């Protein structure tokens, strides 16, 4: 399917992102842009202590304040369900994870700073806020459980009194391999051990979360407008598990969404609250998160503390790998929290390497912090970071070339069944590394290192590979692993009478450019102009039941559904064309929007066929129905496995510890590429977030009080344009996915997965070039941390 040369339209063309016209001219329709006549506003009174017994919430004075419609507390939600977790993990003893109730509003106890205690609905936001200040809350503070190692100790204060401990689960993978892995370590020629932290992050989408509940008494119809990556998932979770609203009475709309990065996958209390309150108050109820609220209520990401060990034989072949991780769940289980450190992490621990024996242990801990869940990459960055740091460390200990050591251990034959339960369908890791060496100009590095030295700076080159599992997921497989949902997707292709097309998709675009890329596929299949095709997404009343956008799945799963539906359209259109051309449909060919009879000059245009479908005067009504609309659901048979090689070059200022990124190169294999420009953009953004994690971002709690120390941009450092260099990105190495019709793998998370290890590897390399034998520094590599490492070396 890849095409060569200058592709102007269809698959492979860098079509300009059509949605950007409205985004860049202020014409986007974000949730906060929606205002419903008569709407009231909600302000959430949030806990300012990390852990405490909620003795009483007195709303009597507040209820009498001007403009107050109604005030809700935890007691009002006793009759409804808790916020559900979508994935049940089974521990190494075969027992289900401990799963605490997650109330809409705190009840009995508060368990993290920012947990909503009460909600004031009022005529204006300021009135709601005024009244919230008049609510009298009596909390007896309890010791905060912040540090995971402390949380795990015998006799530790419990976050949830009704659970046996703070341990959510103790997961072993693959448990049966544990003995063989231990044996391999005993027989190893060399073992490299690394303790590391995968730092806690706050996703920080540009648009904060918003929810508007609306209710029509006349037909008992609920509508929730929300900033979600997956409106159908929210409808299912909230309707079936929290509020008990049947699907046909609940519509969820996620209009333009300004970035998600995972944190807008999950079903949040505020959504359930606004839906519930709209009916209770008989008024639309709107909530717009402030940035401060976002820091303490959006699910955070990462937060793993790990020991990883790599065993090698005397020829530097990897013989075994084992890893022990403490994974922070926060105070409650967010929607996919339990799956991130397990199935999205453990199954990737083979990386790009043929290590025969692997054992992964993960202990998931409850703490008095904001819930932690998927953030761009979700589990796979954590796996990649461990593998690629420990390999780099091993190379240094053994005096081996880090590129050669990796190459020597690459998986080279496909399909490849890893010892961690997944099967890579295809890949070519040497070719991405070859490309990386070229675009990263490795041969010029030593000269650049000398130039830096002459300026008093230390230069380092760091490389890494990565592999990820995308296109989540085969439903029967993830069902066995504990997923409480199917993970197929769906598309409806509606061809209109004059030949234009609306495609209703389950995927949701919140920056990914679906409105541009998806039509390229359909246009290519039919041979009509992309402008004839529009994508409809983000409204459960308009789109088929698809599972939304996350895990780089949209094109691989929903795009495949769209292909299947379009194939059905083409098959039916050929029958219509055959009738019009008085030929057999097996003889009809479709090219460039024209149906023709093979071997003749008889043809009929796309638009004539579609018109016939809707004006069936001359039409085979005895054989086929009028109209031209088809739906397909697509459930993938495997994950997809994008992979690549990344290189980062840094300069370290030895006097200040300041790291600057001088060069960054990324060679990715995404399989077939539909829109190269959009793919490059996704990689650029992913690298920015990966560099953010490596150098700048770190969510920090006071270890005693549980107060969030990084609650604003004054203390939480986001990457900015001048923190980043120009990137060299390439995705010309393409081994198409073998099991989906487009041969695509997914590109949304790669940059964020692939970049942190190369940045850290580069800094460590730079310190060594300055004579400082520093083994490791935990992210973020702030000037303070790097200077301390230099000073203590």
């Amino acid at each position, binding site marked *: 399917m890849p095409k060569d040369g200058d592709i102007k339209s269809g698959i492979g063309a860098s079509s300009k992102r059509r949605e950007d016209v409205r985004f860049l001219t202020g014409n986007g329709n974000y949730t906060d842009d929606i205002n419903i006549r008569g709407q009231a506003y909600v302000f959430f009174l949030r806990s300012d202590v990390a852990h405490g017994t909620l003795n009483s919430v007195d709303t009597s004075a507040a209820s009498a304040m001007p403009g107050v419609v109604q005030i809700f507390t935890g007691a009002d939600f006793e009759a409804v369900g808790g916020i559900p977790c979508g994935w049940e993990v089974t521990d190494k003893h075969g027992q289900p994870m401990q799963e605490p109730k997650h109330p809409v509003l705190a009840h009995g106890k508060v368990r993290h700073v920012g947990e909503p205690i009460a909600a004031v609905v009022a005529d204006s936001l*300021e009135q709601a806020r005024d009244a919230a200040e008049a609510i009298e809350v009596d909390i007896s503070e309890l010791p905060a459980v912040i540090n995971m190692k402390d949380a795990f100790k015998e006799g530790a204060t419990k976050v949830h009194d009704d659970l046996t401990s703070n341990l959510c689960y103790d997961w072993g993978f693959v448990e049966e391999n544990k003995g063989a892995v231990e044996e391999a370590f005993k027989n190893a020629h060399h073992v490299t051990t690394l303790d590391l932290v995968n730092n806690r992050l706050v996703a920080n989408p540009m648009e904060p979360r918003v929810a508007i509940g609306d209710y029509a008494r006349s037909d008992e119809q609920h509508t929730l407008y929300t900033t979600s990556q997956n409106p159908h998932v929210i409808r299912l979770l909230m309707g079936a598990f929290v509020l008990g609203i049947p699907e046909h009475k609940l519509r969820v709309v996620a209009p333009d969404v300004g970035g998600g990065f995972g944190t807008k996958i999950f079903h949040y209390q505020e959504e359930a609250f606004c839906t519930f309150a709209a009916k209770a108050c008989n008024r639309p109820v709107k909530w717009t998160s402030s940035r401060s609220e976002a820091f303490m209520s959006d699910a955070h990401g990462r937060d793993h503390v790990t020991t990883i060990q790599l065993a090698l034989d005397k020829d530097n072949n990897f013989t075994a790998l084992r890893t022990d991780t403490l994974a922070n769940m926060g105070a409650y289980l967010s929607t996919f929290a339990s799956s991130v450190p397990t199935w999205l992490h453990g199954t990737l621990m083979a990386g790009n390497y043929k290590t025969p024996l692997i054992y992964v242990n993960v202990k998931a801990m409850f703490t008095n912090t904001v819930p932690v869940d998927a953030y761009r990459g979700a589990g796979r960055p954590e796996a990649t970071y461990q593998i690629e740091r420990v390999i780099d460390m091993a190379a240094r200990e053994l005096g081996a070339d880090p590129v050669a050591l990796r190459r020597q251990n690459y998986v080279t034959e496909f399909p490849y069944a890893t010892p961690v339960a997944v099967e890579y369908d295809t890949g070519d890791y040497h070719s991405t590394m070859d490309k990386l060496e070229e675009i990263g100009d490795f041969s010029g590095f030593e000269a650049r290192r000398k130039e830096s030295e002459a300026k008093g700076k230390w230069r380092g080159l760091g490389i890494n590979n990565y592999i990820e599992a995308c296109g989540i997921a085969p439903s029967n497989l993830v069902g066995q692993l504990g997923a409480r949902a199917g993970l197929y997707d769906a598309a409806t292709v509606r061809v209109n009478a004059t030949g234009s097309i609306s495609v209703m998709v389950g995927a949701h675009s919140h920056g990914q450019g679906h409105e541009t890329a998806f039509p390229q596929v359909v246009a290519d299949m039919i041979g009509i102009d992309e402008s004839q095709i529009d994508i409809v997404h983000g409204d459960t009343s308009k789109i088929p039941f698809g599972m939304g956008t996350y895990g780089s799945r949209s094109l691989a799963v929903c795009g495949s559904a769209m292909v299947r539906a379009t194939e059905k359209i083409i098959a039916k259109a050929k029958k219509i064309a055959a009738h019009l051309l008085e030929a057999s449909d097996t003889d009809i060919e479709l090219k460039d929007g024209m149906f023709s009879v093979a071997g003749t000059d008889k043809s009929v245009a796309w638009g004539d066929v579609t018109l016939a479908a809707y004006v069936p005067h001359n039409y085979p009504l005895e054989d086929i129905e009028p109209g031209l609309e088809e739906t397909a659901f697509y459930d993938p048979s495997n994950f997809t496995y994008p992979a690549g090689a990344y290189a980062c070059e840094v300069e370290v200022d030895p006097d*200040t510890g300041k790291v600057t990124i001088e060069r960054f190169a990324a060679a990715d294999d995404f399989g077939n590429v539909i829109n190269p420009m959009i793919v490059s953009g996704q990689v650029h953004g992913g690298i920015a977030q990966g560099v953010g994690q490596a150098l700048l971002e770190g969510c920090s709690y006071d270890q005693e009080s549980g107060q969030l120390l990084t609650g604003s941009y004054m203390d939480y450092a986001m990457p900015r344009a001048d923190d980043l260099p120009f990137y060299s990105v390439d995705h010309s190495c393409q081994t198409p996915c073998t099991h989906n019709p487009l041969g695509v793998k997914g590109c949304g998370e790669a940059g964020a997965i692939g970049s942190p290890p190369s940045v850290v590897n580069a800094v460590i390399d730079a310190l060594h070039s300055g004579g400082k034998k520093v083994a490791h520094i935990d992210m973020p590599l702030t000037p*303070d941390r790097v200077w*301390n490492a230099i000073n203590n070396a």
Partner: protein
Amino acid sequence: MYNFEFEKPSSIADAVAALGGDEAQALGGGQTLIPTLKQRLASRTTLISLSNIPEMQGICTGDDGALCIGGATTHGAVASGAGAYPGLAALAGHIGDPAVRNRGTIGGSLANNDPSACYPAAALASGATLVTNTREIASDDYFLGMFETALEEGEIITEVRFPIPEVSHYEKFVQPASRFALVGVMVAKFADGVRVAITGASEEGVFRWTEVEAALSANFSPDALDGLTLDADNMIGDLHGSKEYRAHLCGVIAKRAVVKAA
């Protein structure tokens, strides 16, 4: 934000009178006060804007050659209009971002005396005089600690007079998140000696590093700083830098300031 009354007087006299009211608060560019009010961390009955007082605006040269800057002059205006004192103009041009520089004022910054703000280092290193509605205060007497100054209740900085040094430079090493100064060093060389002021580093706010001033007055070169160190005990230690790191940075950044000033 809580409700408040808003007044916008057009003379210093009217502003001073208005500030005599109960819980009245002067409002400069609002770059600190407005976010504080929006977060409901502060509440004031009346805000008295100083942005419409012509006699507090603009930049001129005084009879003694000093650069005189009206208290309500924005950072942006100083960046573009203080060419006579290039070190000061450059400092102003790197405060915050364009939005901050177009609203924030020199008087507001100096009255707030944030321990990581840039202007206090400039005022102290220049030996500036802060002119208020009632008196003139030497910068050496003005900065009393973090967010503390010699200003009395209701007193307004109407003008700041900067003696212009022969050479100067402000070097800022930024805190990665806020991009305020983690350590900022202003070096100003006058005919009668060198003054060095440091912001961002100390628990006590902006301060002069007198040992270095003496060394640089004798030998204005980065080597003059060799062997001179600051005690880490009084330094700020936080998420972004330990006390030891800040003490170390003071030396590094001071040297760089000297190199760039020379």
